């Protein structure tokens, strides 16, 4: 079983970090993973995306250019760019705070997460990527909330107050 994912949004929305967290969870499950960022001459406010592949076996190419299984889109340009590349029957998790139009494809599943608004209401826009994890928990069986918690505990071991903020963000998105 192989899952090919793309995380995309504005620079600063935390899509690269989100991809890393999902990849780390999968690694901790004993899976093979690759995380591949777009690394152009880019800047905050520009576009950013990364490709994550999770597999039970060795992974060939780390690129995800076509046949996306899961697209996690945090802004409108990400939908324009990557929605056409989602495979029929694939899953689209999208930030409905910034993507307000209906998705122009009926052959994919989708889950809306009001990520930017929820993060804004919490007074911390930086956790909008974490709110999107709620979408994964709702729409996929890639990992459980306990697996997310275990990985975040490691990640924020040196600063437990950040752990609480991030877990609260996920909870708000559920």
């Amino acid at each position: 079983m192989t899952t090919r994912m793309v995380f995309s949004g504005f620079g600063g929305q935390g899509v690269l970090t989100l991809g890393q967290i999902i990849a780390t969870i999968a690694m901790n499950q004993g899976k093979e993973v690759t995380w591949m960022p777009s690394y152009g001459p880019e800047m905050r406010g520009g576009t950013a995306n990364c490709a994550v592949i999770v597999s039970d076996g060795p992974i060939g190419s780390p690129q995800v250019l076509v046949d996306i299984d899961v697209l996690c889109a945090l802004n409108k340009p990400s939908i324009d760019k990557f929605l056409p590349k989602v495979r029929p029957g694939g899953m689209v998790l999208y930030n409905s705070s910034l993507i307000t139009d209906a998705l122009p494809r009926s052959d994919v599943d989708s889950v809306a997460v009001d990520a930017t608004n929820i993060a804004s209401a919490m007074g911390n826009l930086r956790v909008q990527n974490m709110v999107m994890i709620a979408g994964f928990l709702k729409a996929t069986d890639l990992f459980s909330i306990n697996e997310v918690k275990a990985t975040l505990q490691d990640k924020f071991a040196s600063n437990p107050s950040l752990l609480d903020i991030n877990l609260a963000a996920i909870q708000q998105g559920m």
Partner: protein
Amino acid sequence: MKVLMKGNEAVSEAAIRAGCKAFFGYPITPQNEIPEYMSQKMEASGGCFVQAESEVAAINMIYGAATTGTRVMTSSSSPGIALKQEGISFMCAADLPCLIVSVSRSGPGLAGILPSQGDYFQATRGGGNGDYFIPVYAPNGVQEATDFVQKAFDVAEKYRTPVMVLVDGMLGQMMEPVEFKKPVINEYDKSWVVGARSGRERNVINSLNLLPESLEQTNITRFRKYDEIIANETLFESTVADGDEVAVVAYGTPARIAVNSIEELRADGIKAGLIRPITLWPFPEAAFAKLPASVKHIVVVELSQGQMVQDVKLAVGGRLPVHFYGRCGGMVFESSEIAGQVKKIVRGE
């Protein structure tokens, strides 16, 4: 325990664990995470980090530190490696060990920062003057990159030569789980080093030799060392099996893309296998010596306009047609693109 790390950061950590005590470098994308990591970690590990004023200065600092028998390392990317070539030639002439990590971007010139394999000639033929070669490892993932960094220090000291680990920008930037193995640290003769001496003869390390008889002998002796490296250190991987019609040849990250292409071809009824050179110098000619009689085509794929393909042609010696497909400029082929090219070749289109 496995940790998720970027290629650039993983090779840095691997070097520190292998006992690298000096890093000299100069920033250039897409390898900046290496000097960044070293600047944070080197001092705490009892080593030395200097951001040099240029690549030329950095390689000469490496030369200086290597003369003391210290494990030394530098890293750079394409145009930066070009600037280091003079120093690499001088280090070969002085028989000095070091590790050079080259994270290649597109060229020629300053060009772009996206992945490319246009530095195959730069790595295997060098741009420095004189008769010399350096061993070049081309890992295909983050784990292999860390393993070869550790191996490179050992090979460098064993044969007293600079050794290069060559990756493309994709491998430098991507993250994969990595497990750091316990580095093999062998004790080699260090009677040649310079520095504070207690009772031993004075050593001089220099690349200047104005006596032709002596210089010729020195160069011949060095090529005997190269013969040993060729005999002992050449590495490749091959999945070409009896019944395969096509041998696809690729190194580094493109070899992983080719693995997917081969799966796609098999699904379409075309049997193909992969030959992956792991050392680029010495080039694994043996991989092409005993190919099954079923192989009718060799297809070389590179992120360049065709460089390794020349070594493949030399190794094949005209026995089979050698085809080439490449992308360049930072464009990376998709697996289906390679599969499509192979299908055309097999069908004689």
